């Protein structure tokens, strides 16, 4: 029903050529006017997708790094209108996604949210506290315009994984471990779980939560269609002293992730 969205097309084509790299940026962190350029820099360095994060006052799926970035971004004055504006500045067809919490979507109203996202050039949405179960909000959401990216987690049952697979989403967000976003050591259990997912899923899937560097990106991508990196990028940006340094960091770090992924074909 939604096979022909820009995002579906982009993922299908890109996946045939390489492992996918998605970079998460909290909108407006550390400065309101940095996000557009940092996103462009990430694209130039080899990112396939940008997940543009709407900061939320109560980000319960996030670890300490994204919590702090969210708080900082809210203090800078980030609003949904600002996020839509930012998205329109970095718009690349099929390559910018909204990421944020349910209450931000509801604040605009589901229909208006979908329309505004489309108008600003975003091609999908990732909402971690939005269950795949049918509810009033789901029926108001036009999947053909703005497909949602569903999740699977290590606690998901086989039936649940099949249910998610059957949604025919552009891709699935596979949470690497039970936990919140953030960097952590990888163990063999994670790789075994992902291998099982790979055998089960027809839909492409990207692995997020816990990708800290080129090495972990490579290991996770070897058993998936690619990786999503958020906290490690934001933490690095947070240590830079000025805009030029931040851009340089993003170019180098994303570049290193790109090379790592390209080496595991």
């Amino acid at each position: 029903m939604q096979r022909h969205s820009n995002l579906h097309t982009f993922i299908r084509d890109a996946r045939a050529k390489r492992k996918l790299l998605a970079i998460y940026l909290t909108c407006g962190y550390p400065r309101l006017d940095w996000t557009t350029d940092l996103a462009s820099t990430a694209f130039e360095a080899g990112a396939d997708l940008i997940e543009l994060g709407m900061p939320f006052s109560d980000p319960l799926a996030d670890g300490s790094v994204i919590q702090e970035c969210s708080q900082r971004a809210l203090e800078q004055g980030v609003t949904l209108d600002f996020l839509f504006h930012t998205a329109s500045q970095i718009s690349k067809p099929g390559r910018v996604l909204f990421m944020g919490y349910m209450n931000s979507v509801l604040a605009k109203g589901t229909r208006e949210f979908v329309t505004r996202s489309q108008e600003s050039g975003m091609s999908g949405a990732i909402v971690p506290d939005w269950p795949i179960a049918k509810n009033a909000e789901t029926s108001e959401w036009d999947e053909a315009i703005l497909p949602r990216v569903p999740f699977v987690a290590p606690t998901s049952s086989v039936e649940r994984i099949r249910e998610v697979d059957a949604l025919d989403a552009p891709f699935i967000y596979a949470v690497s471990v039970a936990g919140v976003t953030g960097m952590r050591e990888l163990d063999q259990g994670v790789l075994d779980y992902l291998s099982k997912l790979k055998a089960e899923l027809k839909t492409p899937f990207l692995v997020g939560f816990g990708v800290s560097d080129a090495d972990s990106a490579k290991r996770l991508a070897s058993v998936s269609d690619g990786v999503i990196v958020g906290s490690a990028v934001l933490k690095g940006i947070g240590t830079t002293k000025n805009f030029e340094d931040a851009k340089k960091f993003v170019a180098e770090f994303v570049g290193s992730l790109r090379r790592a992924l390209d080496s595991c074909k």
Partner: protein
Amino acid sequence: MSYQQPNINGYFGEFGGQYIPETLVAPCQELLVAYEDARRSDEFQNELGLHLRDFAGRPTPLYFAERLSAKHGFRVYLKREDLVHTGAHKLNNALGQVLIAKRLGKPRVIAETGAGQHGVATATLCAKFGLKCVVYMGALDMERQAPNVARMKFLGAEVRAVTSGTKTLKDATSEAIRDWVTNVRDTFYLIGSVVGPHPYPMMVRDFQRVIGLETKQMLSERNVVVNKIVACVGGGSNAIGIFHPFLDDHDVELIGVEAGGEGDHSEHHAAALTRGRPGVLHGSRSYLLQDDDGQIIEAHSISAGLDYPGVGPEHSFLFQSGRVKYVRISDRQALDAARELSLLEGIVPALESAHALAYLSILSEGRNKEGVVVCLSGRGDKDMAAYAATL
């Protein structure tokens, strides 16, 4: 038609549901199955009943407050939840959930707490049943409620200070959920109110219904008819507990009292229903204090137990349906009511319960021929510093 909520997906009308990260979907389902199984089990119900009687001290009295009645000009009965072990209704729910945790074989229990009453109840029961206990509490609340922090630690619980966000109950709840997501295999999340994802609002309500069931039975045994039941609403567990068995008794008016904070002219309040609008926080859809962009606004109440920007989804449903009337009482009015009960009846109420008591003064301006039950949800020892400051 009799009252039947929630539906099979955990919705009370359009409120409730499960707005949770995927990692928690399976544990919530596991909990639902375990709870439904326990609810039908005679063995579980017998064990719960035994501990409610011998450990919690139930049934609690329905006390006729003679001098308070004389003052207001109508009969006032107090449902004495302040006499439950640990000093508030919170133990009713914590007991039920700890028994579920045991059935699930989870050795570690986590909880969030605001005023510390739910934390103390959880720490108490973890001690009794030999479970490891971690309580999340906002750093600000730890300062405000230091005696309860000491109590939890003395009972063997680990109290973790939460320094993110507003450093209060909502942040402690978020942090407890993060712990749960991370340690979901061996950890049971013991939520303290009728909030959170399905099945928590339903399950916590069912464990608190004992308040209303006892009230109903005691009124009937004494041939007493009341026309109003009043309870305070933060998350709303004591209120749902006393209201629920009366929802089909349409002659009984049900009144939920929200924390009006500094008053209607001020933005400092915790009245999620009467001054908020629907949204999603901590796993369910309900009324919330939020700005136009959906960011959660800090709540304010003199009572730490009511200091929460959300409310249980069933209250949102009852508010929208009109079955329960919701009103606001300010910090000042609550303090006055606490003093009044102390002087007239020799009972020092919790600040939370004092909000419900304060509504009596508003009622006495009208005609109330029959009588009123107030849920006295907790005792006021923890609030002595605030009370002493008014002397």
